[in-house]
């Protein structure tokens, strides 16, 4: 019967039905590298991509597939592919679509590794990127060239929290027949589903909120199935002849799932960034409670924002749900449930104050991750960017007093009490 299950139900069930033999309610962990073929014919048909199935875990695995199908259902995509990390997902997409001589338009305000890949690594392979302001759709349009093969950005930028006007940018990409690829790590499908706004491909770091417990690195690509790859001159890797599989054209034979088929046949086959079945299981456990966690993440974030905005030791607070944020109106329109649980704030007293704060809190963990169920903090001025002068940090859009906070699910009073401890240490220092 067709039920059209809702998001909360899909988070728990999509991708798995208990099998008749064991009745295992949880998704089994198929910790295996390979699968016994029933016949040589069956083996050949899997190798030739005649039918679906598993032949080697670098290419696909039943536990990983359950995760992929859950993600496809939650995003409303045609198909998904999970891989070893968010960065692996990003590289798989870029390398599947672009070749020597191609061009990318990307947001200038993104996670460092996303920037580095496009700015430093891909040019060595002849793929150049122009970086533009993500909240300026006109600038994105102007940067598109005849050899532009994709537009890329983060829905909510890390760490600057700039919001992309996805529907406007999608309109531009659509009119120019260029796929819009979005890193949707910070929003997750719970806060916003990019395909509903016209995006074509989603990249996730599952390591963050989707997994949600800081225990497993993983990434995924979800393919909207809503992009026409038919222009063989522009997208030869998707609609032209593949070098193997009898010269298959992925677009002709897989239509909406062409990109994922291409990535499985080339990226997973030749680069091999596969996700371990056990990590897929851990990540799926996280997804089961995604709706509950995201609700609480947002609730706690809004409480923390109140606390910080009104605190005498806080110089400034940045979050798209605050009216003072330059992208507040866009955030309200495309992220009505809230724009994530990352908050940036400045402590009175600059770099030294930031350091003192971080060193004095005890509940919040000082580390380089976001999206854990636990509250996390980092002070770039004394860690990732400690080698840079205050002026150099400013040029990169950061200040030395800035703390990046990933709001967790603890009792809000315990978090604020912990922060008071930090502020007290700063006060002492400032005296």
């Amino acid at each position, binding site marked *: *019967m*067709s*039920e*059209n*299950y809702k998001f909360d139900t*899909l988070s728990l*069930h*999509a*991708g*798995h*039905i208990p099998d008749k033999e064991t009745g295992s309610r949880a998704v089994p962990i198929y910790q295996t590298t390979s699968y016994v073929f029933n016949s040589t014919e069956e083996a*050949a*048909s899997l190798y*030739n*991509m*005649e*039918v*679906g*199935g*598993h032949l080697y875990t670098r290419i*696909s*695995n*039943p536990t*990983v*597939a359950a995760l*992929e*199908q*859950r993600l*496809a*259902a939650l995003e*409303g*995509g*045609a*198909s*998904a*592919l*999970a891989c070893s990390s968010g960065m692996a997902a990003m590289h798989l997409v870029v390398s599947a679509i672009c070749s020597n001589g191609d061009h990318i338009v990307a947001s200038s305000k993104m996670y460092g590794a996303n920037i580095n890949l496009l700015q430093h690594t891909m040019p060595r392979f002849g793929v150049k990127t122009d970086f533009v302001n993500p909240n300026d759709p006109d600038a994105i349009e102007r940067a598109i060239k005849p050899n532009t093969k994709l537009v890329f950005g983060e829905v909510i930028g890390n760490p600057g929290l700039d919001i992309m006007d996805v529907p406007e940018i999608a309109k531009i990409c659509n009119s120019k027949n260029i796929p819009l690829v979005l890193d949707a790590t910070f929003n997750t499908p719970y806060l916003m589903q990019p395909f509903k706004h016209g995006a074509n491909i989603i990249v996730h770091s599952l390591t963050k909120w989707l997994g949600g417990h800081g225990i497993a690195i993983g990434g995924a690509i979800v393919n*909207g*199935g*809503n992009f026409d790859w*038919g222009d063989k001159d522009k997208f030869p890797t998707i609609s032209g002849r593949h070098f193997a*599989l*009898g*010269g*298959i054209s992925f677009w*002709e*034979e*897989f*239509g*909406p*799932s062409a990109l*994922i088929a291409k990535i*499985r046949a080339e990226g997973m086959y030749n680069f091999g960034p596969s996700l371990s079945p056990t990590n897929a299981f851990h990540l799926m456990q996280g997804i089961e409670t995604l709706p509950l966690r995201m609700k609480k993440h947002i609730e706690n974030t809004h409480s923390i924002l109140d606390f910080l905005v009104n605190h005498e030791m806080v110089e400034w607070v940045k979050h798209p749900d605050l009216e003072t944020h330059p992208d507040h109106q866009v955030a309200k329109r495309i992220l009505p449930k809230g724009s994530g649980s990352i908050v940036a704030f400045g402590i009175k007293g600059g770099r030294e104050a930031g350091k003192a704060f971080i060193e004095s809190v005890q509940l919040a963990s000082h580390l380089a991750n976001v999206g854990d169920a636990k509250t996390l903090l980092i002070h770039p001025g004394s860690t990732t960017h400690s080698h840079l002068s205050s002026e150099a940090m400013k040029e990169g859009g950061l200040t030395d007093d800035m703390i990046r906070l990933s709001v967790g699910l603890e009792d809000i009073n315990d978090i604020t009490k912990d922060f008071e401890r930090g502020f007290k240490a700063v006060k002492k220092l400032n005296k």
Partner: protein
Amino acid sequence: MIISFKDADTYIGTGGKSLDNTKRTLCFLHGSGQNHLSFIQQARFFAYKGYSVIVPDMPAHGFSDGNPCKSIKENAEWINDLLVKLNLKDVVIIGHSQGCLVALELNRIFKSFLKSIIFVAGSNIIPVNQFLLDLSEENPQKASEMMVTWGHGIDGDMSINKWPGHSHYGEGNNIMCMNKPTALKYDLNSCNDYLDGINAAKKIKVPTLAVLAKNDQMTPLKSGLKFVELIKNCETHVLDCGHFLPSERPMELNSIINSFLLKLE
């Protein structure tokens, strides 16, 4: 491959191998609002088994241009002319849903090249309710979404798929979106208006196979079982899934078709 046929670019999937009209050819006929991608896991499978395979996108469907056919008879004539143009001598028709009605009419304009018919999720009638007929005119995308949801068994709802990582709903909706917006309404009206299936079924002389689905909400099993009774010696199988048998149960379907083909002369 794309050929020019009746003044329109016409796409014919061949399962990744070239068409060889000296061999037995399996001709797959897609259902309402579908295109060659309904048979993703059949086209390559049978082409690599050594059959010559064609999966035409009917006019205005998939990658084919042209205007949609407006009746089952018109669809059958179009296919007949295509088979003649391709100079095929030995053809097995494999219809899914509306493709089964087209196969029934094609049998009527029977030519010696037609060797056998395989009905997948078929019947002699496919009545369509007025609500869906209206919706297919007013909002074909919404109508497609409803068909994709109704059409799949529990695997659709639960995002279970034999092809790792694929979603029946997400893929199904986008396959239907590839067609020209008017294609669906003509398809559904063609099905609804087709009332001569009983007589057409009784005329079949070639060997037949029917593979029906237990949880079919588009061509219910009851109707399918009545239909096969009309045909002399129709080998019949029932699989535990929804209407979209080719993607829901690809291996079982392929295996049944393969065994049947091996028994044919």
